[in-house]
């Protein structure tokens, strides 16, 4: 094993960030250029970096606060800026959220195979989605927020079940299995109450996780929660560093382990909920990105989270190119692509590492 000095970790982080940025940039140009309204790459580049738009306060007000777009935008500018770019921006936010919350859950459960969904969040959210589609269709407009809320409630139930004079990683994971199993069954049962194929399709799309049809409205939902949860995550890196050493050591170092664990898990849930609300249940990103980053920059939490913030978007935005363009005109949910990429990556890890699982 090579020497792991702080300087070399920083260098590797910088390389990772540069590589990720290139992937996002390339994916952006592809996404902007291809589609039903094709734009040559060079023109796409110019439109993306168009100073007329970057400097227009009116346009940004519309993007970030809603309302009518100014009349003077050309058709190409509208297609690029109002349809294709926001999808990339949502992908960026979702990728960063899932990767960071996955990293936090891997530390909290001290299990490298943990994902943002390990504590029941995905099935809680999924059940709410199915309930909304079948029984409470009047609530459809606020379904994303309800789903995120359902995920958070499932997490609280998991915590309540796991609690017995305090909790520990194994009890939390087992309680997550309990809640996931029950909610997952209810969710599947609800499918039989849908008699409209279109509704089944939209439920499936949502459960697989997709960026289809996302625009500035989704950016407006996800952005504040993303900024908040990522800022909080970077504030607690000292705590996460100590938590990684195990409960006993953390207690000896004067950490109130239960409070801190609940607090950091809450931050991760906020982050996950922001992702779920706009993109549904995209799998594997929150599992493999922290894994890949750890292999590159090591286990220092600040470096790990920073790596996740750049690699998560790269993976998700990159995968979304495949989801949108590979089988054109059919668009796949991006969660299917991340699964197709994530599975083989784990196979590779299994072959390469002997003791996969422990952090």
């Amino acid at each position: 094993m090579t020497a792991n000095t702080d300087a070399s970790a920083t260098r590797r982080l910088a390389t990772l960030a540069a590589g990720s940025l290139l992937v996002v940039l390339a994916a952006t140009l592809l996404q902007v250029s291809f589609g039903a309204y094709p734009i040559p790459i060079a023109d796409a580049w110019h439109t993306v970096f168009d100073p007329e738009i970057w400097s227009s306060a009116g346009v940004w007000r519309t993007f970030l606060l809603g309302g009518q777009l100014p009349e003077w935008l050309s058709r190409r500018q509208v297609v690029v800026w109002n349809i294709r770019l926001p999808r990339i921006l949502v992908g960026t936010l979702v990728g960063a959220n899932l990767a960071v919350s996955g990293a936090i859950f891997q530390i909290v459960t001290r299990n490298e195979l943990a994902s943002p969904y390990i504590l029941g969040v995905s099935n809680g959210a999924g059940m709410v989605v199915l309930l909304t589609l079948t029984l409470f269709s009047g609530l459809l407009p606020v379904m994303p927020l309800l789903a995120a809320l359902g995920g958070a409630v499932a997490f609280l139930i998991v915590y309540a079940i796991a609690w017995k004079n305090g909790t520990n990683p194994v009890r939390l994971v087992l309680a997550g299995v309990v809640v996931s199993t029950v909610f997952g069954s209810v969710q599947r049962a609800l499918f039989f109450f849908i008699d409209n194929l279109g509704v089944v399709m939209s439920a499936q799309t949502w459960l697989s996780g997709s960026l289809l049809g996302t625009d500035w409205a989704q950016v407006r939902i996800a952005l504040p929660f993303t900024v908040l949860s990522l800022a909080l995550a970077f504030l607690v890196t000292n705590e996460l560093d100590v938590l990684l050493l195990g409960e006993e050591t953390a207690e000896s170092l004067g950490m109130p382990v239960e409070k801190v664990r609940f607090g950091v898990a809450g931050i991760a849930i906020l982050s996950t909920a922001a992702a779920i609300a706009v993109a549904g249940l995209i799998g594997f990103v929150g599992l493999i990105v922290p894994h890949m980053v750890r292999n590159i920059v090591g286990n220092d939490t600040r470096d790990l989270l920073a790596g996740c913030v750049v690699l998560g978007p790269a993976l998700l935005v990159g995968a979304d190119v495949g989801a949108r363009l590979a089988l054109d005109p059919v668009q796949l949910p991006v969660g299917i692509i991340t699964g197709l990429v994530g599975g083989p990556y784990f196979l590779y890890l299994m072959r390469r590492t002997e003791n996969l699982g422990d952090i």
Partner: protein
Amino acid sequence: MTRQPANDATGTDTPDRGLSGTDLVVRYPGGDDPVIDGESVTVPVGDVTALIGPNGSGKSTLLNALANKHSPADGTVLLDGHTIDELGSKELARRLGLLSQENVTPGGISVRELVERGRYPHQGFFDSLTDADRAAVTDALRVAGVDHLSGRDVGSLSGGQKQLVWIAMALAQDTDVLLLDEPTTFLDPHHQLEVMDIIQALRDDHDTTVVVVLHDINQAARYADHVIALKDGTIHARGQPADVVTKETLRTVFDIEATVSTTSHGMQVVPIEALHDEDGTDHEHAPGSRTPTRETAADGGTPPAE
């Protein structure tokens, strides 16, 4: 609250400094009988105190009670004149360090990064490392003799090196009192001696009060200023090594026949044979009386006391 007078031979304690436990009763959840049943200990300030005793005698439990890790069902622990649970958790961690017997070493961080975690109790919520923190870390690495490893990945170290690094982490905590739970048990002779040398250096050069659980009676006899021998949750003997580590104590506490002699390197204990109780009170060790102990332990409801 009442302060217990120092009941050790040194008698140099000021009441506002040091660690003591009074009438401690410690139970584990689900266990009926207390693991420690009403014992009092005053740890001599600035000395090395060794806790010895057979498996399950309550050594680690007593250590954990003194560190406020297991709240005793009854009795009080005083640290520097405060009852230990009235100190905030970080405040306690600035005064008292505890190194557990087994530690999970995460891969992917450097030795120095691991030792830096020991500064956690000195840091505020949003703080990053200060120059004082860095100096303490450098000092801890040096005292533990692992400064040459500081850039290495902890995951790549040998078991003995890892233990020294963990000790360095506890040293970075910069506490007046340091409790170590069997720090030498799984180490090769070289690293065992290194650990004991660090403990001596802490006492001699840093004025640290050390309480250490030791499995090796010879190490206790040779390095400790004060030895406490436990059996079945009761303190059986305490005092200077020469008074505690005797043929008779070894027979009662450890159920062994042993010779104790004085050599040029201090006292030496040579265990000769294991004794078996005639009256049948010691089923666990009586050969042939039961299925092997491993299985009895697996289906027995109570956790082992250590």
